[in-house]
Every structure is written in structure tokens, then in C-alpha cells.
């Protein structure tokens, strides 16, 4: 009896061991990874990515990608004829794991003018699939490949003229996850940079054709993330919460320019350099070659808006390569205090809390004759003097400069408001329920100018529509 028990335990142990062993089978050659079952691949438009592969086994993965030539918006008032994989620039994100057998269906929409194909850098084979996928409008080509190497790869059209097909937006990313998947993170996003060459200069309105000469010279009119100016700003910004780890799948379609990818105010904890296995830590700016990619991971520790740029910085501020990551959550003053004080720096010594000036301000030469003129002059003065802090729509800047739009503090007391413009203001005030503790210096404005600018402010952005006259300003001036 005892021997039987022992034997059974042994058998049980053996089976358990073999089961365990089976699960962890490692293949010396990824080519040997078997596939079971078929699955239709989930494709996503930027900036979204499909669900991680997790622990799923290698499968026969069916990818259906439609090519669309369509007019889209490059920036306000500027349109461009984009050629796209899946209707977006960059094209749909494809997520696979190592060992998958991908059956790729490339569909060229009948309305399209041109034949296209796809060259995937994740493919081991001639042309990266380009030769097998060359497809006329109104047709579909099918080819298949096995993903042998994990990493993040670019795909693009490789039909002649190749440069033009890429310049018009025909690129995207395909991810090959390793066995067991990438380590889980809280947020994942898909960003791809591209440069565009238009007949008209940056901002020139209308449907802009592709400019071959500029493309050859690599003089881009637009350098953008996700196919257009503003694809990742404002309401389109990507988001995260304090404490979350963010992974960005960043690609560069080119065709011409190399990207110095940087997120202002963040340090990349980990970068899969060039999308491969090599991990670099604590990186400020990572270089992404045209036709290359990188996986960038970082934990967001403080709230705020983090600007995503190509640090070839004129591209960011003049050509469109600018995105935003908005992080919400509790502040952490230890990591980042925010502005503590704005003191006046005077090398001669402290004491004077105002901009150095004489008492005699030159009165503006032409006083306003009508309300309309007051508004016009007032707006000019506002844009020159007040705009930097209180902003174009009087919205101010949260936690720093109080709003003038719909402002209870402003509307409550005209004389107080005039006084602040005349003499400056220091110390805590409450505006629309928010506390502000900043410094406003006295302003170098004439009596007329103060009357105009205050009339402009009171008659804008939902304020009380008071008209401030020169006499009212004089009165406040004399009162102290």
C-alpha cells in the first residue's frame, strides 16, 4: 500500500513537473513557436493602441488594412491629400507577439488613384512584404509572415515614388511583443512624427499639393505628430493621472527628418532604444531615426501639462511638432513647488516693490473721442501690457495670475481696480473662489490709457460693462 502511495505521489509530481515545464517551454528559435487558433487583429487609430497581448499564445493573426486616399486638415484652413493606411496618419497600430503568423490583407479602396503596397520592418523577407502586397485600386492582396523578432517596427508604403507615398502619410507602427508581453503599465499611447512638404508655405490656406522639390531638399513646411498640427493638443491631448506609468510607442515616419523626441518636464525612466531590446534609463531626449521607433516609459509624479516636442525646437513651435500630456492629480510640492514668489530683482538693494519709473508718465497723445475708440485703444494697451499675465481672453493662469473674465473681484469695486493698475498689488486676494498670492507691479500707463484699458476690460468677457473715464482715474490717483 505504502509503495503504491509513493508511486502515485511520484507520478503526480512528475506530471505536475511536466505540466509546469510545458508551460515555460522556450524555443531556441522563434520560428519554431507553434500557433493555434485564428484571431482577427484589433487595429486602432492613433493615439490609441490595442490591448496588450498579455499571456496569450502565438496565433494565426488576421490583419485587414484598408488604404484610403483622402483629403484631411493639416492645420486650420489648410487641407492636404493624405494617403493613409486605415484612414489615419499614422496608420492603424498593429499589435502582435513573437511567433504569431500574421495573415495580412491589404485592401486598396476602389476610389483610390494609385497602386500601393506595404513594407513592414517587422517582416523577414524580401521587401518586407512590399513585393507580395503590391495592389491596384479596387483589389486586395494577401500574404503572410511570422514575427521572429520582438520590438517596435515601422511599416510604410514602398511603391514608386516611395518618398512621395511616405511623405503623404503612408506609415505606421507594428509592435511585436516578447513572450509573456511587455511589463504592464497604466497608460499606453501611439505617437508618430512625420514631415510634410506643401506647395504653399506653412499656413498658406487651401488644399495644398505635395511639393517634390522641397521634399528632395528636405525643407519641410510641417513637422507634426500624428499627421496634423494639433493632433495631440487641447482636447486631443493624451492624459494620465499622478502616479501612473505611461508608455509611449513613438515612431518616426519621416520621410526626411530625424526626431529628437522630448517631453518637457519629464525624464524617461526607461527607453527601449530604437524600439529594440536595449533599455536605457533616465533619458532626457531620445533620437528616433526616420523609419525607426522607440518605446518610452515614465511615471508621472506631479500634475500639469507636459509638452511633447521634437527638440529641434523650431519644428515644435513653428512647424507643428508639439503635443500635450495632461496629468491630473494631487500636487507634490516636494518634487515640484510651483512658483513660490516673484520678487523684483534690483542689484542696488531691496525695498522698492515697483518697476523703476518716474512719476511723470507721458500721456498718450490722442485721447479717445468715443466709446469705440476707447475700446480700440484699450485693447491695444491690454495686448501690450496686460496680456502676458492675464491672457488673451482675460482667463488668467490658474494658481498664478487671477482671471479678468467674469471676475467678481474686478466687478465689485471699480475704484479698487483703478487703484491696482495705478499702484500695483501684492498679497493674497480671492477671485471667483480661488486664492491668488502674486505681485502685480504698478503699470506705466497714462491716465487716458488706464481709462481705455479698464473700459476695454469691463466691456469684455462677461464683465459689468462699466465705462471708466479719465476723471475717475484722476480721482483715484488723488485720493491717496
Amino acid at each position, binding site marked *: 500500500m505504502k509503495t503504491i502511495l509513493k508511486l502515485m505521489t511520484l507520478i503526480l509530481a512528475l506530471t505536475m513537473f511536466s505540466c509546469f515545464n510545458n508551460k515555460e517551454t522556450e524555443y531556441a528559435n522563434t520560428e519554431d513557436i507553434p500557433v493555434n487558433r485564428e484571431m482577427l487583429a484589433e487595429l486602432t487609430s492613433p493615439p490609441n493602441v490595442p490591448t496588450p497581448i498579455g499571456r496569450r499564445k502565438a496565433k494565426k493573426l488576421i490583419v485587414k488594412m484598408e488604404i484610403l486616399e483622402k483629403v484631411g486638415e493639416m492645420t486650420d484652413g489648410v487641407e492636404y*491629400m493624405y494617403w493613409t493606411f486605415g484612414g489615419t496618419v499614422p496608420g492603424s497600430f498593429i499589435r502582435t507577439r513573437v511567433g504569431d503568423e500574421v495573415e495580412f490583407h491589404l485592401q486598396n479602396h476602389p*476610389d483610390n488613384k*494609385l497602386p500601393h503596397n506595404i513594407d513592414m520592418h517587422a517582416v523577414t523577407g524580401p521587401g518586407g512584404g512590399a513585393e507580395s502586397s503590391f495592389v491596384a*485600386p479596387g483589389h486586395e492582396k494577401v500574404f503572410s509572415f511570422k514575427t521572429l523578432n520582438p520590438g517596435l517596427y515601422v511599416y510604410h508604403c514602398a511603391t*514608386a*515614388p516611395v518618398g512621395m507615398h511616405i511623405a503623404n502619410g503612408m506609415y505606421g507602427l507594428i509592435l511585436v511583443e516578447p513572450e509573456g508581453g511587455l511589463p504592464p503599465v497604466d497608460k499606453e499611447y501611439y505617437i508618430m512624427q512625420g514631415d510634410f512638404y506643401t506647395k504653399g508655405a506653412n499656413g498658406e490656406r487651401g488644399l495644398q499639393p505635395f511639393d517634390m522639390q522641397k521634399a528632395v531638399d528636405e525643407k519641410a513646411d510641417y513637422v507634426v505628430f500624428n499627421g496634423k498640427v494639433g493632433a495631440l493638443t487641447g482636447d486631443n491631448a493624451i492624459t494620465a493621472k499622478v502616479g501612473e506609468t505611461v508608455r509611449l510607442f513613438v515612431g518616426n515616419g519621416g520621410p526626411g527628418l530625424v526626431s529628437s523626441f522630448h517631453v518637457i518636464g519629464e525624464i524617461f525612466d526607461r527607453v527601449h532604444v530604437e524600439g529594440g531590446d536595449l533599455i536605457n534609463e533616465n533619458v532626457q531626449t531620445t533620437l528616433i531615426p526616420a523609419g525607426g521607433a522607440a518605446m518610452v516609459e515614465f511615471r508621472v509624479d506631479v500634475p500639469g501639462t507636459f509638452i511633447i516636442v521634437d527638440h529641434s525646437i523650431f519644428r515644435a513651435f513653428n512647424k507643428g511638432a508639439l503635443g500635450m500630456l495632461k496629468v491630473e492629480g494631487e500636487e507634490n510640492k516636494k518634487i515640484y513647488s510651483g512658483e513660490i514668489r516673484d520678487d523684483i530683482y534690483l542689484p542696488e538693494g531691496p525695498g522698492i516693490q515697483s518697476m523703476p519709473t518716474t512719476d511723470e508718465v507721458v500721456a498718450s497723445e490722442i485721447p479717445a473721442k468715443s466709446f469705440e475708440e476707447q475700446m480700440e485703444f484699450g485693447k491695444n494697451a491690454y495686448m501690450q501690457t496686460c496680456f502676458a499675465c492675464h491672457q488673451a481672453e482675460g482667463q488668467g493662469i490658474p494658481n498664478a495670475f487671477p482671471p479678468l473674465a467674469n471676475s467678481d473681484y474686478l466687478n465689485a469695486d471699480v475704484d479698487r481696480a483703478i487703484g491696482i493698475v495705478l499702484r500695483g498689488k501684492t498679497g493674497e486676494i480671492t477671485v471667483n473662489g480661488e486664492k491668488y498670492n502674486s505681485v502685480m507691479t504698478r503699470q506705466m500707463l497714462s491716465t487716458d490709457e488706464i481709462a481705455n484699458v479698464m473700459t476695454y476690460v469691463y466691456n469684455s468677457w462677461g464683465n459689468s460693462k462699466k465705462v471708466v473715464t479719465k476723471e475717475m482715474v484722476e480721482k483715484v490717483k488723488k485720493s491717496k
Partner: protein
Amino acid sequence: MIKNQASRLLFVLLVFQTMLYAQSEGMVSIKGSRYLPLYGRDSTVVAVKDFEMDVYPITNSQYVDFIKKYPKWQKSKVISLFADKGYLVNWKSDTELKDSEKPNSPVTYVSWFAAKDYCECQGKRLPTIDEWEYVAMADKTTKDARVKPEYNAEILAWYEAPRTNENTIGLHPENFWGVHDLHGLVWEWTLDFNSVLISGESRKDVDKDNNLFCGSAAVNATDLMNYAAFMRYAIRGSLKAKYSMKNLGFRCVKDIPNEFNSSF
């Protein structure tokens, strides 16, 4: 004086010669020559004989007439080897276009077999690539405008303009030869469209795969002229004879009998 007489004689001879061969209706004669085709670094000079070419692409209404006369090309009767499922999808019946289609728009959604037969039934044939490209390299004033940037820019602009197949024929000005719409309306079938990839005649055999892909496009790609041509060769290379496409039509040409052919 002698010189003057000689030129007068030449003039008379020229007039005489054109009168010898009556020009076909709706066609113009093209004077052949040798030229270097647009495409390919290993291209050699090709010779084109004199021929006649249709002034316009074949229109929807011309194709309606054809189909009534030759019912085997009606879409319910066509042999599937000769036309894919896209054949005449913009027709509501075997003999009627959809109401949205204009009679004088170029006929599209036709296969190479259908186009070839159409031309042959008129006593004509499809142009070869060399013939088509030869006529298409002219602009309004010159036989070979390929070096002019504006000529190429116009062609490239069409590639970016959507739904041009819905336009009618003749909106583009005639070129040097009096031919309209070679650029700017639809792609056109050529007799030997598939020689680009399949035949080794026009290029070295070893090059036949990569000429249209990465490698060759990178060579000489600074040349705007190549860009415009690349696209035409690319579309031809992507076709099969039974394909029918929204943006693909055709026109016919006719040989000029040898005794009247002055080129060779």
C-alpha cells in the same frame, strides 16, 4: 531664288503627302520618331512609327453603342476570365449606365480584354506603352515637354485630385498633336501594360523585381519627370488584364500603312 523654289517644292510635297492618306474621323496623326522613354535608368532609345490616335478617351456613350452591338461584353454575359467583378459596376443594367454617370465622361471599369476588343472592332488597336508615352510627353507647344517643371507639376496635381473620372472629356486643352486628356482625367490601358514587370525585353531580367520598389525609386528620384512617370508605370505594373478600375479607361490608335509611313 533657287532656295526659294526648293522650299516651295518642299511645301508642295508636304501638303501632297498628308493628302495621300486620309485621316480617320476622331483621330489625329502622330508623326513617329525615336525617343528616350520617361522611365528607367537602363532604358534605351525606342522607335515609334507614324500612327493615328483617338483625340479623346472612349466615352460612356460610345461604349453603350459598342455593347449593344457586341452583347458578349454586357456585364451579365461577360466571361469572368476576361473581366473581374468590378466590370461596369457603374451600370444599372446590361445596356444602361446609372443615372449619376454622364454620357460624355470617359468609360471606366473596363478590363484590358474589353478595351482591346473594342478597339479591334473599330479596326483599331490599343496603343503600346511607348506610343502612349510618346504622345503624352507633349504639351501645348512642344513634342517633348518633359523637362518643363510646369508640365510635370500639372500631371502630379492630377494624382492628388479626387474623382476626376466623373469629369467629361475635352476639358483639358489639346496637346501638340491635337490629342486631349492624356493627363488629368483617367489612367488608360495600353496594349503591353504588363511588360513592365513580366517581360524581360525592356530591362535586364535581374532588375525586373526591384525596378518599381525601393531601390530604383531612390535612383534619380530628384528628377520630377521620373516622379510623374513612376506613377504611371506603377499603376500599370499593378494591373492584371481582367481588372476593372474606377480610374482606368482607354483610347485606341491605328497603324498608318507602311507605304504612307514616312518615319522609316
